[in-house]
Each structure stands twice: as C-alpha cells, then as structure tokens.
C-alpha cells in the first residue's frame, strides 16, 4: 500500500476545484451552483489541511475552520436570497434573473 502523500491530496483538491468551477459555470439551478461553490471551498480546505499536515503548522487547520464557518454563513445567506428570489420570481434559475444590469 502506498502511503497517501501530499501530492495525492493536491490532485484530489484540484479535481474538486475543477468540478466545482465547471459546476458553477454550467449549471443553471442556483441550488446546484451553491453546492458547487461548497465544492470549491472544500477543495481549498483540503489544500490547507494537507499543507498543514506536511509543514506541521496548525495555522492551516485554523484557516480551514474559518473557511468552514464562512461556508456555513455563505450558504445561509445564499439560501436566504434564493428563497426571496423564488417568492418574487417563482424561479431558481440563474438564467432567468438578469434585472441587475443597465
């Protein structure tokens, strides 16, 4: 069994980032977009933990905790906006919401 090294974590993280980014850019449902953002954030988290482990420095873990907290807050605000949007427009489709322009 090969030991799991930092590089493994980096590849996983990169994969998650790419999946999340593609999800944000391609999906229309805002719920899914939010979920994709979570993926991106978690990719970052994995990076932070991995380097923290490698460098034996807890700063990375602390940052990961911050990011999780931030993600939770962001999800709450994002879902709140989503519900408000649905009440007014009866849609959760990002393509149909384009009033915030000139």
């Amino acid at each position: 069994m090969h030991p799991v090294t930092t590089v493994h974590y980096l590849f996983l993280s990169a994969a998650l980032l790419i999946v999340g980014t593609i999800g944000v850019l391609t999906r229309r449902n805002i719920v899914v977009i939010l979920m994709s953002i979570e993926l991106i954030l978690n990719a970052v988290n994995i990076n932070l933990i991995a380097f923290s482990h490698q460098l034996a420095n807890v700063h990375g873990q602390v940052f990961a905790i911050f990011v999780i907290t931030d993600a939770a807050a962001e999800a709450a605000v994002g879902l709140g906006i989503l519900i408000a949007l649905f009440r007014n427009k009866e849609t959760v489709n990002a393509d149909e919401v384009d009033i915030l322009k000139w």
Partner: protein
Amino acid sequence: MVTGTFLPLIWLIPLFPLAGAALMLLVGRRLDPQGTHGHGHGGGGKAIISILCPGAILAAFLFSLGAVLELAARPPVERSAEVIVFEWMPAIGAPWGFLLDPLSSVMVLVVTGVGFLIHVYAVGYMAHDGGYYRFFGYLNLFVFFMLMLVLANNYVLLFVGWEGVGLCSYLLIGFYFLRKPAGDAGNKAFLVNRIGDAAFILGILLMFAALGSVEFTRVNELLRSGRYAPEAAQWLPWIALCLFIGATGKSAQIPLYVWLPDAMEGPTPVSALIHAATMVTAGVYVVARSNALFVLAPDVMSLVAVIGAATAILAASIGLVQNDIKRVLAYSTVSQLGYMFLACGVGAFWVGIFHLYTHAFFKALLFLGSGSVIHALSGEQDMRKMGALKDKIPITFRTMFIGSLAIAGIPGLAGFFSKDEILWQTWSSQGGAHRFLYVIGIVTASFTAFYMWRLMNMTFYGTSRTPHEVEHHIHESPKVMTVPLMALAAGSVVAGWVGIPKVFHFPESWPSLEHWLAPVFAGSEAGVAAAGEHHSAAAEWGLMALSVALAAGGIWLARRMYHHKPELADGMEQKLKPLHTLLYNKYYIDEIYGALFVNGLAKGGGTLLSRFDAAVVDGGVNGAGWMTRFTSSLSIWWDTWIIDGSVRAGAFLVKLASYPVRVLQTGLVGSYALFIVLGVILMFGYYLWK
C-alpha cells in the same frame, strides 16, 4: 386765578348735556323699547327721557346764567374767566381749557336757552316718532359739542366742537334714514362741510406756525400789540381766509351754502336748533372771535362783507318763490347769516353777534311754528296745499305773526334793531366804502319782508287748499309745543331791546349789548368803524325810515299778491316766466355744482384717473410683465440650450462611451462567474508564461 361759585366750574356746563347724551345713547333703548319701532305710546321710560333731556339743557342754562351773572358783576376789563382743566396738546399749546367772556357768554346763553325751549318743543313734536331716545341723545350730544365750541379757549378745542356739531348735524339730518332724500341730504351736508373744515384746519396750523399759539387770549394779545414776528405778517391774511372758508362751510355762505336747504330733511326741531339758531352761526362766532386777526387783513374783511351781502340777496331771492314752507325758512336763514357776515365784514363785529342773537329767537320761532303747522296738517310741507289756518291753529298763527314781523324789521321787534344796525354800519363804516353793499342789504330786507308775508299769507290766510281728509284732522299743537312758541315770541319782541340805536337817546344805564361785548372787540372797532361817528343823526333816522318803508312795502306787496288778488301772483309768474324758473330752480346752482364738481371733477376726474390708470399705471405694470416674460423667455432659451444642453451633452457622451461596456453587463450571474474564472486563468497564465 378765577374766583366765584360758578366761574371756576364753567367746564361743567357742557357735561350736563353730555351726561344726557351718554345716558340716551347707551341705555336709552331700554328706557323706551317701543320707540325703536315707531309707535311708542308714552310709557314710563319715555316720560323719563322727556324730563331728563330737556332737564339737562335747563341745568346747563341755569349754570351758565349763574356764571354769566358772576361775570357781569365784575368791572368790564376783568370780564374774562379762563379755566384750564388739563394740558391736552402741549406740542401746539392747546390745553383742554374753557373761556367765558362777554362773547362766549352770549353764545352760551343762546345755545342753552333757545336749545332748552326747542328740546321742550321736541318732546311734543317727536312724541309719535320712532327712535325717541336716539333723537334726544343726538340732540343732547349736539348741545354738548356746541357748548364745547363756544366755551373753548383755543382754536383746536373749538375745532373739536366744530366737528362734533357737524357730526350731530349729519346724524340728525339723516334722522329719518329710511327715506333716501334724508340720507342724501345728511351726506351732502357732511361732504360740503368737509371742504370748509379742511381750510379751517389749515388756518389753525398756519396760525400756530406763524404766531406760535392757538389760544384766543394769547393770539388776540399778540395781534393787538403787534408783537408777532415780522415775517408772520404776510401769513395773517391767509390765516383769516382759511378760517373764513371754514366759516362759509359751517355757516352756509357762498359758495358752500348748498347743503343748508337740503338739511331741512331733518325733523323740524333740528332745523330750528341746529340749522337756524345755533350751529350755523358758529362761523359768525369764529369770525367775531378772531376779530383781531381779521382787522389786520382788510382784504379778507372786504371779502367777508361781499360774500355776506351776496349770500344774503342770493338766498333771499331764491326764497321768494319756493313753495316748501321749510325751504323758504332755510333760504331765509342763509340770507340772515349773510347779514351777520356782512356786519362782521364791515368791522361791526358786535352787530354780527347782535343779529346772531336776535335771529336765534325769531328764526327758531318761525321754524318751530312751521313745524307746528306741518304737525297740524299731518306732515304737509307744501304751502300750495295750506291756507286759512289762521283760526284753526290760533296760537301758532299769532306767534308766527310776531316772528314774521320781527324778521321783516318792523320797529320795536328784535329783528328791526339788529338788521337796522347792520345796515347802518354798512352805510357808515370806512367813510362809506360799502355803500353798494348797503343797497344790496336794503333790497334783501325788502325781499325778506316779502317772502315772509308770502309764507304767512299762503299758510294762514285766504281760502283753504288742504285736501278734505287732512282738513278734518287739523288741530292746535299740545301745550308742550305752544309754550316754547310763546316764550320764543316774547324773546323775538324783547331780545332787540339791548341794542337800541344811539339816536334814540336812551339813558346810559339801559342794558347795551355793544357795551357788554366791547371788551372782546376793543381795539378792533377803532380801526374800522371810527368813520361812522361823523354821520349825522338825520342820516341815521333817514336810513331807518327807508328800511322800514321797504319792509312795509314788501309786506304790502306780498299781502296784495297772495291774499287780496291771488291772480296777480299767477300773472306775475307768467309774465316773468324765465326769471321765476331761474329762481324756482335756485339758479341751478345745485345742477351746476353737480355737473362741475360731482360729475365733472369727481366723476370726470375719476374717468381721467381711470384712463391714467389704464394707460400709465396698468401700462407700466403690463410693460414690466412683458419685460419679465421677454427676459424669462431669453433665460428659458439659455437654460434649455446652454445649461441643459451642456449637461445633456455630457450625459450623451457618457452614454455613447458606455455602449461597449454595457454589452458585458448581462445581469446573469453565470457570465460574471465566467469572467472571474477567465480573469483568474489569465492572471495565472500571465505568471506561468513569464
């Protein structure tokens, strides 16, 4: 310091009628509730008014009598009591002060004495009229102001009374205000008087400016002693002229006499009291009071004499043909007032006052008598509908007979002495400079006799021309009216006995108005009438005989034309048609004034002013408006094209520049996310590339 019982308290005299007036006008309505509706029949309240109001005048009369007797007990040079109640207008030296001297004592006694008799008469005359309390309130108020006028010790306080009597005159002329002519006549009197009053104020102000005082005693002393500033001398004639113009308004002289005949719209007691006996003589009083001033303005004196004579003959000639009994008497009053001014104008001030005093008796008597006739005929005033009243209302007839004799100038009665003295003074003063005025005066005297006996004959003699239903109700007036008539008739006989001409050679102790008034006019007569001394007694007797003959001739002619041969009057009227029409229409003076002043100056001036308004004032306003609009249109253009234009040009440029950027702003979250990703890739790419 003024000593005595009554003299220090002369300021109380006007307060008696004032108290009566205040009581009537404030609570009188409650005393006489029916009175307001015009059919009050007695009642306790009415009895109180009937006693209280004449009583107030009687109290004032007795008080003044006491004061005058105290004054008479002093030596002649000290017969002047001045009481200052309080400082009133210190800026022009006009205190609230009262002056009782021989001149004002004559006036006070006439006002309160004749006033009292007329009040008593009015109790009967007004018994069935509405507004009983109001009538007596005004009448008492009038007496108050009249007493202020004659008792004031300065021109300003005199002017207060002067305006006050004008107000009361207006209120009482318009007493029957539901009738339009009455209201109009009140307005006319008030407005015409304003003209004179304006001049009067001007005179007072000029006097203060020139002499520095408006107090009678001070002004007279300054003028007599000649200790006024030399530059003030040029103003003296103007002051005198202004005061005289004021007098022509109040005393109904040419050119301001037109209001007095119309004033007969008022109740007859008012005509008697205000428009015959007292108020209208205020002008004569002022001229006599200012004698020291007038003597220094000989031109104005001549003007006074000429105006007086002209008014006398003009009014008398109009009176010859009038048919309204009260109008004849009104023109007679104007004419007699003209006599008084004639006397003052030739320098015989005391004679003017003498005639004023005798006239008060016989003219009040004649007015009250005519009121009694009107009363008997249920309100008829047209003499053509009278006649043969001699035996039906005998007391009225007899008293009026005496009054007519007195005014006509029959020897022994009051009018003879005063009128003859005027004519004599006119003849003899200034070495005969006024002889022409004498001729006018003596013609007027014959006119007077004629129109009075025309009035008597048309009213009391001949055949009755009254309608049947009126004739039924003819009755002699009640005692309350006839007793004042009798008292005035007695006065009309004896009043003149204090001015018996010197040629009669009465004893020195005989009462003489001339001596009584001498202290007031001392220094004024020396300059003017001295020349009269040289005329012989024969001339005086001759002139006296002439005037009596003319008066008798007038009476004889009137009796012949209106009693013995009425057809003679009609024939005369036909033969002299144009003259009769001219006189009957009062020389068309009212029409001329109406055209000239009312329509010409007032309304024509109004038209002119409205044109001026339309053309100049409105033109200016419209022009300014047009200018504003014009400049604002300019600034609108500037705003729209320059200010707004530059702003909009800026906006347009921004808009133009923003086009490419706007394409990128889709509003879609996805596209923004894409830009972020692309940006990140670009950034990384850049660093990686490097």
